[in-house]
């Protein structure tokens, strides 16, 4: 695929910016519009943009691992965040746990945040896996 130099240069700067933005969306989700699902989609769009500009192989090198590995990782994080209250405090599955004192920047942290991080990773992994696989075979 032939790409313009402008897109190529821009994508190198856009990738980190978009990733930071996606994490921002992920974190603010509990109070304002956003969340793991949208965050994951934005992150995957960032990588896809990079792959359009620089070629799929470059993006894969950047990722080191195959995006498919994000699936079990994300699922595990989400599941464990639900399991934590059962294992630690003998509460029902998926009871929300919250830290007493708010942490700087993040605000108050709870098991729901980890759940959302899992969702973020899974959505990112699913989208990238599907799109990378299809574009490889195209």
């Amino acid at each position, binding site marked *: 695929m032939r790409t313009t130099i402008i897109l190529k240069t821009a994508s190198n700067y856009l990738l980190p910016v978009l990733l930071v933005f996606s994490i921002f969306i992920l974190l603010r989700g509990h109070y304002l519009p956003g969340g793991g699902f949208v965050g994951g*989609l934005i992150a995957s769009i960032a990588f896809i943009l990079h792959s359009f500009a620089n070629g799929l192989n470059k993006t894969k090198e950047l990722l080191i691992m195959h995006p498919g590995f994000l699936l079990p990782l994300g699922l595990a994080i989400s599941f464990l965040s639900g399991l934590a209250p059962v294992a630690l405090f003998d509460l029902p599955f998926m009871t*929300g746990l919250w830290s007493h004192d708010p942490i700087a920047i993040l605000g108050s942290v709870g098991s729901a945040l980890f759940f959302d991080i899992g*969702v973020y990773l899974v959505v990112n992994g699913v989208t990238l896996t599907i*799109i990378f696989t299809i574009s490889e075979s195209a």
Partner: protein
Amino acid sequence: MLTAILTGFLFSIFLVFVGRFFKGKLSILASLVPLGLFIYFTQFIAPVTNGEVIMRNFEWIPSFGVDLGFKLDGLSLLFSLMITGIGFLVFAYTSSYLKGHEYLDRFYGYLASFMGAMLGLVLADNMITLFVFWELTSISSFFLIGFNNTNPASRKSAMTALGITGIGGLFLLAGALLINNITGTYSISEMLTMSEAIRGNEFYFLMVIFIFGAAFTKSAQFPFHFWLPGAMKAPTPVSTYLHSATMVKAGVYLLMRFTPVLGGENIWNYTLIAVGGFTMLYSAVHTIFRTDLKGILAYSTISALGILVFLTGLGTKEAFLAAAVFIIVHALYKATLFLVTGIIDHQTHTRDVKRLAGLNKIMLPVGIAGILAAISSAGIPPTIGFVGKELTYESALHYESLAIFLMIGIVLTKIFLLYAGFVAGIKPFVGKLPEEHENVKMPGFLMWGPPLLLASLGVLFGVAPFIIESALIKPVVTAMGADASEIHLALWHGFNIVFILSLITIGVGTAMYFMIKPSKKLENGIARLDFISPENILEQFNKIFVSVSNFWTNFFQNGYLRNYISIIILFLVVLVGYIMINETRFTIDYNSLSKITVYEITTTLILIAGIFYTVFTDSRLAAVAAMGVVGLSICLIFVFYSAPDLAMTQFSIDTLTVILFVLVLYKLPKYLKLSDYKTRVRDGILSTIFGLIVTTLALEVLSEPVSKEVGEFYAANSYIEAHGKNVVNVILVDFRGADTLIEISVLSIAAVGVFGLMKLRLKMKDRRRYADRSLNEENLKK
């Protein structure tokens, strides 16, 4: 007790890791497992004789009343001892029978897990526990029948057996749920106290049907009997263990267990008498048409099961006593005959009874075992078989009505069974040894020891029936709900009408043995009637079922995505449309609608333009881009109505969808004329109607009084309970978090699916490429 049941399963798991050590000389050690369990269960003989009932309960899902409840009474103990005792002999026998088999460890694994499942079945007191173990026996039976998995006939028989007994298991589950619905418990001991209420219930008929469905399929009663002869494809130790001594008796066990709960009504008794009576006579007659030893034994086993069902149906104390004795009689002689058949098959490589004779000269101990078993099966004194037959005749003779017909039925059955026993146990061993078997060798002790032991026990119990009387027989009769205190087993019952009938049976049966020789002609004769056999009818039904479902699937799921969508939409239109025509008031409450702004009008116009462009353009790429426009317009509408979360997600999804489409476009032809004019008109009409229906629905919903309870709950509690201000997100990650967890799992599966499909295609392409290359190289060589 739980440990005892789990031992079998644990042993088979253990074999997964160290199985290779159990393939050689050490394989005999596997028999220590059932032997240990047998010894464990013998310690319960004393308490059970004294009338104790041992209960163990482990909570499983207490909120549903589902527990791992176990109960050891006379009935359970008799079966447990049979399962472990015969199990021990079969395990030992197998180590010699399948010596050096590549998958001997696997075989032991299946056998051990079957033993565990069967023990669980007969010890279970909770109906759900019973159901679980019931199905486990079906599954292990499936693996054992299909053990020779390279043989298509074996695989087919295994499927048939699993199908029939599996359906029976579902009946059992249905019965359990229904009874639970009425009594509020799954515990069989608790049901015993509610027998009156259960029998008086309006659904009593249905409960009986369900329990019968389970019992008749498992115990191979007509018309479900045909899976059992098919199951003879399994190695002989399996036929001995599962398909004659233990598993097939599970159905009888179920009937016996439920006799005190459901029994006593006419429908229970008469159905059992009719089905059991017909089955016993039908399959006893069938034995004279068979020449395969295992075929003969299979039909005589079905007949024996019929007798047991018949006796349970009679419902008198005498009949229960006869049934209890006959279970032991049958287990002893039939297991012997199967093991003997296995030896003959193993040494001479044939089971064709026409070609077998005079083997006594080579394997005398085996011959003695066979002949003793045949005598016990014939009911000739001094074997336990004689005691059993006398009791059976007595209970039929003393039945309140139609005794004469029952008598004729049972005597005829016994005559044919005597014939079958003689053909299987005596014929191969007497007479002149054919030339083809002159070089046959004597088998090892491990093979002839078990059958000889079982056959000798049959004689021992006959001479001294008091050994089993109070320990095994009386507690069984008690467990079936009858008073057992006055029972007294004896070999000699006096010279009476029953004794005369016995003499007639033995005389006629022996005469038949000398007059009718098993022949191919008889076998072919019965084969001509196969087209009306239940097996054939079921097979025809299966074929029709497969072709109808094939047609059905191809019609609705022909692989074209566009058809799927049309069908789904059509279905919705019909369903929703039908209800709307009847229910809709077609009044629009204009006050509830908000004012239309210029932004909305503009967006809607863009939207409509996008739709038209998508439908009418000739270029795929343009269509995709126009679809993007439609999506983004919807996004804007979300924004206008303050749903930023939705808008953000829709926006990202739309972007990705367009990218996906563009990627796929590479693979598709450029030109867009897939559908002709007619299809387009059809689809246009369908989608217009669908759009109209959805619009009407939305307007209709608005004019209904809205219940805002759910929304208010979330809005009120989202910060208090979940520390979040964004209600949408709080619902996703907290209130309905489990849903989200399942959803991301589904997404992951979808991704794995796409990956698998695409990569598989790549591989196929590669494979074809390699195949072409090697073909070219070969051509070059030439």
